Every structure is written in C-alpha cells, then in structure tokens.
C-alpha cells in the first residue's frame, strides 16, 4: 500500500474536520478525492504532506509517517499559488533542481515552451492562470511516486482544463499514483481509476470508478450530484 490511514482524526479546536478515517490507496492508481467544499479534502491532503499533524490515529506513506522520506516521493500541487512572485521561472526551476533529486528540468522547459511561457519572465508579471500552469509544470516535471493535486482545475477556465488534464496524463511518472482532489467531477471523470467520496470528514464510498458506475448505473458526476445534493 502507498497510503494507509488508520482511525485518522483531525480537529481544529472543537471542530472535527476528519472523523475516524480508515483508508488504503494502492500504487499505480489515479484516484479522485471527491467531495463538496468543506468536506475535509484539503485537510486530508495537508496531513499526507506533513503540513498538519493528526489529532489522533495515523497516516502512513510507504509504511512511514509523513516526513523527509515521504516528501522525497510526493509531488504536491496545493490549491494556492505558493511561489515567490519576485523570482523568474528559470530561478524556480533551479530551486526545484536543488531540492528534488527526481526533478527533470528538461521536461519543465519543454512544457514551458509548449505553452509559450518565457523562463526569463518573473512570476509577478504573469496572470493567475499562467502562474497555476507554471506550478503544474513544476509538479509534473518530477519523477515522483505519488502526485497529490489539490483542485488542479479549480481556478482555470474550461478551455484550459483539458490542457491541464492532458499535461497530467502525458507527464506523470508511469507506475506512480495520482490523488486528485476536486469538486469539478465531470472534467476529470474520464481519467479516474478509483474514486473516494468524502463528506463531513468521513469516507462515504471508496471503490473503483467502474464498480461505482455499475453499482449506481450512473456516471460518477451524477452519483456525486445526487449524493451531495444540498
């Protein structure tokens, strides 16, 4: 197992955000972490990335608690713009090369060229959408074992969503696992192997995308719309 969660709980003060999560994610799968806003998706992802510490229970990556070893194999795309605006794209590529042994700058430059982004441009001169694309390029230029993508298509226009999904599919390390968190299901349904439905901090369903479609006789998007109807 690549990811194992045992009785995982996370509270923010009195608020219980994740409640007793037991979950296993295998290697080599593309997994959709699907749930409405505030369901606990980002908290779960932060726990995997050692950005939060569990209140109780544990999460294991490759059998170990999140830490330096897990960070070497996880390529994480947060929902935020996390790069220093004063840096040029080429400086950020140098930064990634310095810290991640699995970073392949050739892929990064190739993808930048394809998108006509000048590596000498500073981030502060770019639009929000372009910055998000730069981040995605950086994350996908790593030969990681686990890609964790938090709302990778949330902030971009529908036309750019296909580009982003294609970039993910064409560039991820074969044999790696991808965990994608989103509430825009119809856009990503086509690429998912497994689906995790999360609501109110609890796992409602976890199965292969095909099994879920068969069981409910509906698309994942339709299941989501009915399950999480307001």
């Amino acid at each position, binding site marked *: 197992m690549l990811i194992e969660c045992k009785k995982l709980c996370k509270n*923010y*003060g009195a608020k219980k955000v994740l409640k007793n999560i037991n979950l296993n994610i295998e290697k080599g799968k593309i997994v959709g972490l699907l749930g409405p806003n505030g369901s606990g998706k980002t908290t779960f992802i*932060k726990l995997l*990335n*050692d*950005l*939060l*510490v569990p209140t109780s229970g544990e999460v294991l990556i490759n059998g170990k608690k999140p830490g*330096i*070893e897990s*960070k*070497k194999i*996880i390529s*994480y795309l*947060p929902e*935020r*713009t*996390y*790069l*220093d605006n*004063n840096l040029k794209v080429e400086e950020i590529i140098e*930064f990634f090369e*310095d*810290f*991640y042994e699995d970073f392949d700058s050739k892929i990064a430059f190739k993808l930048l060229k394809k998108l006509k982004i000048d590596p000498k441009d500073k981030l502060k001169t770019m639009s929000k959408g372009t910055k998000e694309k730069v981040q995605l390029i950086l994350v996908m230029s790593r030969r990681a074992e686990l890609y964790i993508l938090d709302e990778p298509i949330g902030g971009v226009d529908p036309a750019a969503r296909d580009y982003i999904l294609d970039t993910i599919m064409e560039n991820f390390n074969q044999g790696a696992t991808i965990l994608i968190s989103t509430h825009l299901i119809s856009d990503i349904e086509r690429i998912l192997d497994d689906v995790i439905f999360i609501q109110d901090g609890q796992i409602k369903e976890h199965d292969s995308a095909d099994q879920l479609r068969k069981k409910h006789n509906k698309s994942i998007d339709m299941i989501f719309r009915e399950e999480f109807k307001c």
Partner: protein
Amino acid sequence: MLGKLLKYDMKSMSKSLLPLYLITLGMAIICRLVLLLSNQISIFKGVSALVVFFFCILLIGVFLYTFVLGIKRFYNNLMKDEGYLTHTLPVPKYLHLNSKIIASLLFLVFSTIIVILAFCISFYYFGMFDELMRMLTEFSNAMSISLPAILCYVIITLLLGYLSNLLLVYVSLALGHLQNKNRLVFAVVYGIVVYTISQIVSLIALTPCLIVDPGLLATNATPAKDILMPLLGISLGVSILLIIAYYLITLKILKKNLNLE
C-alpha cells in the same frame, strides 16, 4: 541542505538590501561633498546640517530594514502561502529556522560594514582612527578591562541582543499562528506578553547581584569591572537562555502546530 536553503534566503534578502546599500554609499558621497562645499560656500552651511541629519536617519534605517527583512522572510516563507512549498521540501524543519537566522545575522554583519564604510566616507578626517583608539584605550584603562575583551563583549552583546529580538518576533508570529483568525493581531499581543516576561526574567536574574552587596555601586574603591562583569555575565546568560527558549517554542510550533491558511 542548509547551504541550499541559505543560498535562497540570502538571494531573496539581497534583492532588497543591495539597492539600499548602494543608495547608502551614494548618500555618503553626497554628504561628503556637501560638507566640503559648506566650508567654502556659505549657502551650503544650512543645507549640510539637513543632509547630515537625513544621512544619519538613513544609517539607522539600514539596520531597521535589515531586521524587518529578516522577519518578513521568515513570515512569508514559513507561515504564508510560500510555506506550502517550503514545508514540503525534503528538509528538516530546524534547518529552515537555522537558515533564516543565519541569513539575518549575515546581513546584519554586511549592513554594519556598509554603515561603517558610509560613515567613514562622509566624516573621515586625518587622525580619526588614532583619536578613536585613544578614547577606547582610556575607557579600557578606566574600566580595568583589556581593550580586546571590551570589543569582544560589545560584539557578543550586540549579536545576542539582535538575535534575541529577532527570535522574540519569530516566536510571537509563531504563537499568533496558533489562532485561526487575526493571526497578526494576536502576534502583536503575544509579542508584548513575551517581551514583558523576558524583562521580568532579566530583572529577577540581575537582582541578586545588587542585593548581595548594596554598597557595591556606591563604593568608589571598587573597580568598575567588579560591578560590570557580573552584571554583563548574567545579562548575557539570560539572553542566551531566552534565545534558546524562543527557538525551541518556534520550532515546536512549526513542527506540530503548523496550520497554513
């Protein structure tokens, strides 16, 4: 890894500080020229006082800006959005903190060199250093402490003072980070609380020195070093203990209580 972290911290801070250093040296040359002209052209006399005043403000500003930049780098890189990248690098948390502290101290040294250089450019006159040495030697004799020891004490005290204040702000920001909302407001409140506690601790630590022999301060026969040395020693000891406490609390929060927005 520390070297790599330091490289990027230094690079980031230098982007703001190098232009300031150039401006300071440029202002030093202007100040010198104005002072030279004021001896020959009367209209420059009034202007020179104003130029010297603003130049001195600038020199103080260099230190303040260096300090603020050390805090800004810590806050933006570890507690704001950039933290999503910083904290997911395969690097132990203490190295992030060490790198920020070392970068700040190195720039304090650079800023000090620039300020001394700028001061010399503006105000140097023949025999200035001889006069300075004479004054220091007189002071050293009066205190019965050797000159190298005095210089050592001054440098260590300044460095520890700077480090103590820097880490006081770090720990305040880290404590403010424990709140879910208004983190900066809480950081200011925690800063005031931590500062007050540190002052009380210092006072309690220094009190025995004065209580043991109340006449110590009044006795003319007592060499100055016998009064000053224990006070300086305790004061430095307290500073070191506070620095360690601030460091450990900040590190603990970064490790166990991080909650980026």
